[in-house]
């Protein structure tokens, strides 16, 4: 381990609390309050990463989100986090991190040889080179050489929350301007004010101020925050997106890596913020200077150096040199000397610099090199020497004589870019302000105010002389985007190749497209493009900022809604009984329903065959509760249903039930079921299980949007009733054992009849319909009695050998009978004439939903896919739903098998399908293709079992 490091006395780190950490396998020491970046600098670690494309060694460059270089792989295993900015990771005991995109380590990277190929790896190199034979043949190589961190392999062991919050005023950023705005807004106690800040502690750049006045102001403001009841502060929270209607999305970091809370508290919380008014106090980001080899470790932003010295007490070198084109670089240098940190020199490209600054610098022993540009840097593993040339007053040509300057830290200030990302996302327009060479908010589109340096209010004049790249020397090694290795020459190349739009140049060169989203490269890139195309910057425009401002973890987007909570599930009223009976559950829509009940050593097919056979020979019980039950009442209920169903409802008598098909206005079959007339003005519609909600909505839509005058009230009572289907030749005998008010005799209660009464002391509705082909009673009682009814029926049926049966067995039984299942045997084109209902349509005297479309050209096409039975000619043959029915010449699909089961009752496979023109082709032979082989089959009537329908009338 390295020796403990000392810090400047005014630092905001706690030197009484040392922390041990590991980087690239070596152990170091830092302090509580450090970031990983400050701790690395304090330990003299200059190379912390390798660049994306060229593997150039890179050092800490920034102080926060703008950091393009110090991306690390934090921790290992399932909790590993790729691309963590060392500048944003608070140090903790035992932290382990590795540099990225380097092997075996960032300080000795075998791929570093890539840097020598800079000349042959210009912008668009990949687009132009890896075209032949295709990108895929090169991808494996490129992925290995170019890249960032590695995603974890296993499931994320942490959990994440999502939360919504409403506020009258939302302030983003808690620097001087944000704190002021928040406290002002909260002065009105009727306002809810929310202050969101992304740093570990509030204060923004005040945290890096050595001045007593600033520190006092901040301490006072923090104290006020605690006392204002209508002001809520969310620290450690980054606002990443700004949408319409002042809706913001933010991510709060809760349990940090390595904290005691890790695993016990959520890792992050995703906030959706609904704001009345938004105040953006997001600050400004300093820009680098653009000159040859400006990416060498030790070269950093002046604002970053300021932060490391004053906030963390780390002086990362002994020969500190500043390079600037504006006054803020001088002020930062003088602030360092004010606390006794010596600055060797300031290099400034300008000829005219205020006498006051020059005098202050002289007094502090700082050598001033004015009207000079840096034309090169040297040093292995870090900057050691600078080359300077005189810049003529035309700003374009250089003097011949070179000067040399030693240096181990070069602090750059190329001006300031207000952090306008969120403002731009909000729809606000930006304008280029010549005086300060930056983009500032110009015209808001939503209720948003921008304050402080985010609005270009820099407190003191910059007197900036923009220089987008260094003239008179090659643009080849003048870095613009450090993360994606984009240089001034790349942007010039794009311009030469006639990319004019800034959006195109961005994508062609990838400038600003890496994980930092161009926080330090955007404006410099615009400047170079403006020069290359001979246009002023406002004419070049800027790229549109898009969410997220900072990369967001997928875990935060997912929240708790993953795994079992990914989506809502529904349980049946008799669920505990199904579990006890060994049900194998499957998802049918949201419902967890028994597919079948497995007995020891039974396969699924065996269980389904046993259940289906028992229903045909004896009796079975099925939980049919998801069946949709819509009650339609009112004086116009009959008229309404006559328009909703293809079938004639006008003639349906009280107590009678009728099968009905429902179409949408495009003539497509959307649902079917039994409709019962309970009273003249009261109907009970049964829908498919999946249709309970959607058909309810369908009915409401017609009543609310088209037929507003029809006096009809629809009630969805699907889950009020538990429905059990008792089916089989012994069903009546079993039901008769339960005391109730029903006459169940064949004569009194025939097929397709419905009765209301009492069963075992509870209100009960019984429908005689059949989806199995056997005598069936669909018995409904209030849902809380469903479990009890299940138990009573199973007990009553025990002497008869009753069994519970599942959905798969029901599907087998109805396939044997050739009963249509809407959704299985229909597709998005099926019309009633494809199902044999063409005659009924013609007989119905009045209009109904979808009728007119049936006679359009599409409805008359003889090649329509139509419902049919499919008999396999090979008795041992089997097929599956989804198998293709081939066209006559075998080169195309002319239909599908839609349902197929091995029938234990017939001893062969039964199948249904939709086949081109099938209704006129009964008896024809076809070929069925599945999984590489074909087999012969014949189109037949759908009902394979009991085609006369004798069983269900028994």
């Amino acid at each position: 381990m390295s020796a403990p490091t000392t810090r400047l006395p005014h630092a905001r780190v706690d030197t009484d609390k040392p922390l041990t950490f590991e980087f690239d396998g070596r152990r170091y020491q830092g302090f509580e309050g450090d970031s990983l970046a400050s701790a690395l600098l304090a330990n003299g670690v200059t190379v912390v990463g390798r660049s994306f494309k060229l593997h150039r060694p890179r050092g800490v460059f920034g102080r926060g989100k703008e950091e393009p270089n110090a991306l690390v792989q934090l921790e290992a295993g399932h909790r590993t986090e790729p691309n963590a900015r060392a500048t944003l990771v608070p140090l903790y005991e035992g932290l382990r991190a590795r540099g990225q995109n380097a092997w075996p380590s960032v300080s000795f990277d075998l791929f570093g040889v890539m840097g020598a190929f800079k000349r042959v790896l210009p912008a668009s190199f990949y687009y132009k080179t890896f075209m032949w034979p295709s990108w895929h043949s090169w991808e494996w190589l490129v992925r290995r050489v170019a890249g960032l961190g590695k995603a974890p392999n296993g499931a994320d062991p942490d959990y994440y929350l999502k939360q919504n919050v409403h506020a009258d005023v939302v302030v983003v950023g808690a620097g001087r301007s944000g704190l002021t705005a928040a406290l002002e807004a909260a002065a009105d106690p009727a306002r809810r004010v929310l202050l969101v800040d992304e740093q570990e502690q509030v204060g923004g750049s005040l945290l890096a101020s050595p001045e007593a006045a600033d520190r006092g102001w901040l301490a006072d403001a923090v104290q006020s925050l605690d006392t204002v009841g209508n002001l809520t502060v969310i620290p450690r929270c980054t606002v990443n997106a700004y949408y319409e209607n002042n809706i913001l999305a933010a991510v709060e970091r809760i349990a940090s890596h390595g904290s005691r809370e890790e695993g016990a508290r959520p890792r992050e919380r995703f906030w959706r913020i609904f704001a009345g008014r938004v105040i953006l106090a997001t600050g400004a980001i300093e820009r680098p200077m653009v000159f040859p080899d400006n990416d060498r470790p030790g070269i950093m932003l002046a604002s970053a150096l300021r932060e490391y010295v004053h906030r963390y007490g780390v002086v990362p070198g002994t020969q500190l040199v500043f390079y600037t084109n504006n006054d803020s670089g001088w002020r930062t240098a003088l602030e360092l000397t004010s606390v006794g940190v010596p600055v060797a020199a300031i290099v400034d490209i300008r000829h005219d610099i205020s006498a006051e600054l020059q005098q202050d610098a002289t007094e502090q022993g700082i050598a001033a090199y004015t009207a000079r540009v840096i034309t090169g840097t040297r040093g292995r593993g870090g900057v050691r020497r600078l080359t300077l040339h005189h810049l003529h007053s035309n700003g374009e040509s250089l003097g011949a004589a070179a000067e040399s300057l030693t240096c181990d830290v070069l602090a750059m200030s190329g001006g300031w870019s207000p952090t306008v990302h969120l403002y731009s996302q909000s729809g606000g327009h930006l304008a280029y302000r010549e005086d300060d060479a930056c983009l500032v908010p110009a015209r808001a589109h939503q209720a948003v105010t921008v304050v402080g340096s985010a609005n270009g209010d820099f407190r003191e004049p910059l007197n900036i002389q923009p220089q987008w790249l260094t003239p008179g020397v090659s643009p080849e090694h003048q870095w613009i985007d450090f993360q994606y290795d984009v240089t001034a020459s790349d942007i010039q190349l794009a311009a030469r190749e006639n990319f004019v739009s800034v959006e195109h140049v961005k994508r062609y060169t990838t400038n600003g497209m890496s994980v930092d989203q161009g926080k330090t490269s955007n404006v410099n890139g615009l400047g170079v493009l403006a020069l290359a195309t001979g246009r002023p910057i406002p004419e070049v425009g800027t790229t549109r900022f898009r969410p997220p401002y900072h990369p967001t973890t997928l875990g935060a987007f997912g929240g708790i809604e993953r795994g079992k909570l990914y989506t809502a599930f529904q349980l049946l009223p008799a669920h505990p009984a199904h579990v006890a009976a060994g049900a194998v559950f499957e998802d049918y829509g949201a419902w967890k329903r028994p597919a079948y009940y497995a007995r020891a050593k039974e396969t699924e097919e065996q269980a389904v065959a046993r259940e289906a056979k028992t229903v045909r020979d004896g009796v079975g019980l099925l939980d049919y509760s998801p069946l949709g039950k819509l009650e339609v009442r009112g004086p116009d209920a009959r008229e309404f249903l006559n328009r909703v169903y293809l079938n004639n409802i006008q003639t349906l008598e009280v107590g009678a039930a009728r099968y009905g098909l429902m179409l949408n206005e495009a003539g497509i079959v959307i649902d079917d079921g039994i409709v019962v007339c309970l009273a003249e003005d009261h109907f009970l519609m049964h829908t498919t299980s999946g249709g309970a909600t959607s058909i309810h909505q369908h009915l409401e839509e017609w009543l609310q949007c088209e037929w507003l005058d029809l006096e009809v009230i629809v009630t969805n009572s699907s889950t009020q009733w538990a429905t059990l289907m008792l089916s089989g030749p012994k069903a009546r005998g079993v039901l008769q054992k339960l005391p109730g008010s029903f006459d169940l005799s064949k004569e009194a209660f025939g097929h397709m009849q419905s009765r209301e009464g009492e069963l075992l002391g509870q209100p009960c509705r019984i429908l005689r319909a059949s989806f199995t082909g056997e005598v069936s009673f669909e018995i409904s009682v209030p849902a809380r009695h469903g479990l009890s009814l299940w138990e009573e029926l199973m007990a009553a049926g025990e002497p008869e050998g009753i069994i519970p049966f599942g959905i798969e067995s029901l599907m087998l039984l109805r396939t044997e009978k050739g009963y249509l299942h809407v959704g299985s045997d229909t597709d998005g084109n099926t019309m009633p004439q494809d199902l044999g209902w063409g005659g009924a349509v013609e007989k119905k005297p009045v209009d109904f939903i979808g009728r007119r479309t049936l006679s359009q050209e599409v409805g008359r096409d003889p090649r329509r896919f139509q419902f049919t039975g499919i008999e396999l000619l090979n008795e041992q043959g089997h097929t599956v739903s989804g198998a293709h029915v081939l066209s006559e010449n075998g080169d195309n699909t002319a239909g599908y098998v839609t349902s197929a089961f091995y029938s234990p009752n017939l001893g062969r496979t039964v199948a249904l399908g939709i086949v081109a023109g099938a209704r006129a082709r009964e008896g024809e032979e076809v070929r069925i293709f599945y999984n590489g082989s074909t087999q012969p089959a014949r189109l037949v009537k759908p009902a394979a079992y009991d085609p006369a329908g004798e069983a269900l009338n028994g």
Partner: protein
Amino acid sequence: MHIIDCPWCGPRSEDEFSCGGQSHITRPADPAATSDTDWAGYLYTRDNPRGLHFERWRHTFGCRQWFNVARDTVTHEIHAVYRMGDPRPDVGGAGS
């Protein structure tokens, strides 16, 4: 993301609503007497304006009611919300 001012429930976020497309489409009074072309137009022909659009939305997870919305398809601004059966309001700007 929209905040939609349901005529009954007040402003709610878009999550609770479903969009039903263009509004003020009248079903032909006598479908049987409607030509194939006119029927196809009723079924499928819709405006696709850049700007003001009159459409219908349902407060699916609230009061289940359909209502009309005059929305700008460029700015997402909602200019008016009005009940089914009410006439199209004059909200200014380029209409469809």
